């Protein structure tokens, strides 16, 4: 072997051993986004970052969600990560918009511990069909060929409802490890159609506690059980709710109305009176008149500031939709923010801004710059809550401690006000006109659904069973 070859060999060995620590470090930090690496674009997705033997660090996701016509729009997600000896896990939900470029890194000070990117070819807005089964081949046959069928693991299922916004179905056959019941409940409340395939082995029957009936609503979703032979049919029969349009329907003209200021005629009237007063003082007041006019203009300047400056520089309006069935509800909230002076808006929440180009999100704070006299619409991360309006048999019950007003049942008409703790025996009303507040929602909700309101909160108790129009007749 010549000296040149020796040199090459030594260089190769050095390169391999030199890169080992970097490779090992990258391997000790694992980022999982979506389910089994599948991201549903334009939806909230679960995020899990696992670190082993790493120092305190920061996770940065940078997503360019712009387009050719409008240019770059940057969304940054920043999360502090507490390092420790052994394994540390960070979990959250992140709204992933349709991206042009998507990269991530974990950094500790100036040192980048790990980094990566997601290709635009991975972008897919189709919902997921999650399967927890050891017989994935059979389970796939229950869905269309175009469906995005994903094999999930029990441990991958979070207990947060927002994680499941991009999930359509959760299918469990008991052959794989049992998921946590809380995770199944979270998925169902989020609007997922959960199907348990029967028969279950005795050690898996805990799942059946969630499905006492062959099919029932829970939150915004369904939970059903059926033999494998009927699975495809049951999945087709269970009606889905389009949740995104329901939330966006909260954006009524009242929510986007800009604040009104002092009317023009008052401004002109005051200015005219002021002109006349100053003229009189100058013309007839001589020296003292000048001093009086000077004082008047200074006093009026202060008064003008107090009178014309709006008391609130930022106007926040919120409206929430509590979509419930059973004891639990999926709460979606929409906020409109009207800001008069320009500045950086910081809000202690997690949300998806509809009309903001560049924004930052952390696990606790959303921040973005707003120009003067501008408006932003935020759709908050959906959360799980207790259902306050609830069906109990054919009775409608108010489970909250305050009145629910404008109770309306689709197909039956207005039902009046429901006091706290009270139940309501339904009656058919001739005045079947849907109140204006409920109109954008009513088209997307099934007949037999009850709606009520308290301030800006709209409580919906979904029709408990398959309800036909015949049910609504007096």
């Amino acid at each position, binding site marked *: 072997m010549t000296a040149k070859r020796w040199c090459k060999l030594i260089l190769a060995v050095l390169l391999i051993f030199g890169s080992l620590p970097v490779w090992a470090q990258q391997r000790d930090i694992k980022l999982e986004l979506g389910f089994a690496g599948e991201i549903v674009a334009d939806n909230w997705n679960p995020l899990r970052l696992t670190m082993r033997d790493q120092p305190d660090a920061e996770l940065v996701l940078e997503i360019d969600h712009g387009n050719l016509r409008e240019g770059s729009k940057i969304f940054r997600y920043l999360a502090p990560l507490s390092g420790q000896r052994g394994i540390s896990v960070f979990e959250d939900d992140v709204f992933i918009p349709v991206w042009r470029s998507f990269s991530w890194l974990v950094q500790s000070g100036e040192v980048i511990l790990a980094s990566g990117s997601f290709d635009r070819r991975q972008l897919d807005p189709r919902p997921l069909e999650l399967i927890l089964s050891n017989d994935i081949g059979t389970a796939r046959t229950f869905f269309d060929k175009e469906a995005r069928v994903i094999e999930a693991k029990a441990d991958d299922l979070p207990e947060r409802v927002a994680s499941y916004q991009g999930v359509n179905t959760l299918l469990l056959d008991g052959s794989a490890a049992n998921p946590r019941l809380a995770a199944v409940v979270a998925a169902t409340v989020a609007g997922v159609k959960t199907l348990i395939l029967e028969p279950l082995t005795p050690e898996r029957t805990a799942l059946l506690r969630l499905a006492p009936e062959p099919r029932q609503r829970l939150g915004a979703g369904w939970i059903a059980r059926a033999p494998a032979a009927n699975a495809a049919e049951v999945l087709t029969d269970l009606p889905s709710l389009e949740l995104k349009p329901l939330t966006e329907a909260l954006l009524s003209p009242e929510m986007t109305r*800009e*604040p*009104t*200021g*002092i*009317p*023009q005629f008052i*401004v*002109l009237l*005051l*200015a*005219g009176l*002021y*002109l006349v007063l*100053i*003229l009189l003082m*100058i*013309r007839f*007041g*001589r*020296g003292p*008149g*000048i*001093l009086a*006019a*000077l004082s008047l*203009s*200074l006093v*009026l*300047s*202060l*008064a*003008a*500031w107090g*009178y*014309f*400056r*709006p008391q609130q*520089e930022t106007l926040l309006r919120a409206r929430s939709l509590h979509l419930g069935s059973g004891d639990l509800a999926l709460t979606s909230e929409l906020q409109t923010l009207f800001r*008069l*002076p*320009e500045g950086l808006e910081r809000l202690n929440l997690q949300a998806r801004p509809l009309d903001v180009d560049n924004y930052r999100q952390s696990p606790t704070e959303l921040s973005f710059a707003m120009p*003067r*006299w501008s408006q932003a619409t935020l759709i908050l991360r959906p959360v799980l809550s207790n259902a306050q309006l609830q069906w109990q048999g054919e009775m409608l019950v108010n489970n909250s401690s305050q009145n629910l007003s404008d109770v309306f049942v689709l197909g039956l008409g207005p039902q009046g006000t429901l006091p706290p703790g009270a139940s309501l025996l339904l009656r058919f009303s001739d005045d079947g006109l849907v109140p204006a507040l409920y109109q954008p929602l009513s088209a997307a909700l099934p007949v037999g659904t009850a709606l009520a309101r308290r301030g800006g909160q709209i409580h919906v108790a979904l029709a408990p069973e398959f309800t036909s129009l015949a049910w609504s007749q007096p």
Partner: protein
Amino acid sequence: MNSNLLIAVSERLRRSDMIQLFMAFIALLILVLAVTWPAGSQRVNDSWYSLVQARVIALVLIAFSYGEMSALRSRFERASVLLALLLLALFSLPLEIASYAASFPEVPLLWSLSIVPANLIAFFGVGLTLGRLLAFLRIRFLSPLLIPLVLLGVVMIDSWLGRTVFNPFLATTTVVPLHLIIMLVLAAGTILSLVWRRNKNKEEGPL
């Protein structure tokens, strides 16, 4: 302000030319408010931007013209004219404050409050210098033509420089520290020229 100067300013303000000017000036500002204040379906209040520009254009033109006209008057008279003009600016302050309060512009209020008097005094001083120069050259009859031309020149210089340095009309709605410094220097020079009593001018009245 001593009593003589106060009386002189009062008399100056009561003269018909100043009264008419004051009325026209305030009427102009009210007209601008009438046009730009939100009405009907319009909600965004941008009235301050138009109002402050109208105010500064009018005051700079008036100060420049009166400066040129007062160039050969006594120091006392020049000071009384300048004070009368400053009062004119001050009397229009409530209108600007009202529109500023409702408009929420990006520019700080302090900038808005400082830039107008600085420009007024500076351009009064430029007017005084121009008036003396024209008198020296014996071409004062050209002043009605030269006053707008000088202002146009100021705008053209900025256009040539590619940045706002002298142009008072653009400097009101954006913060330009260099413009304020230049105007403050010019304003200080103007005030010094009015206050500083040279020996040969001792016969002029007390200030």
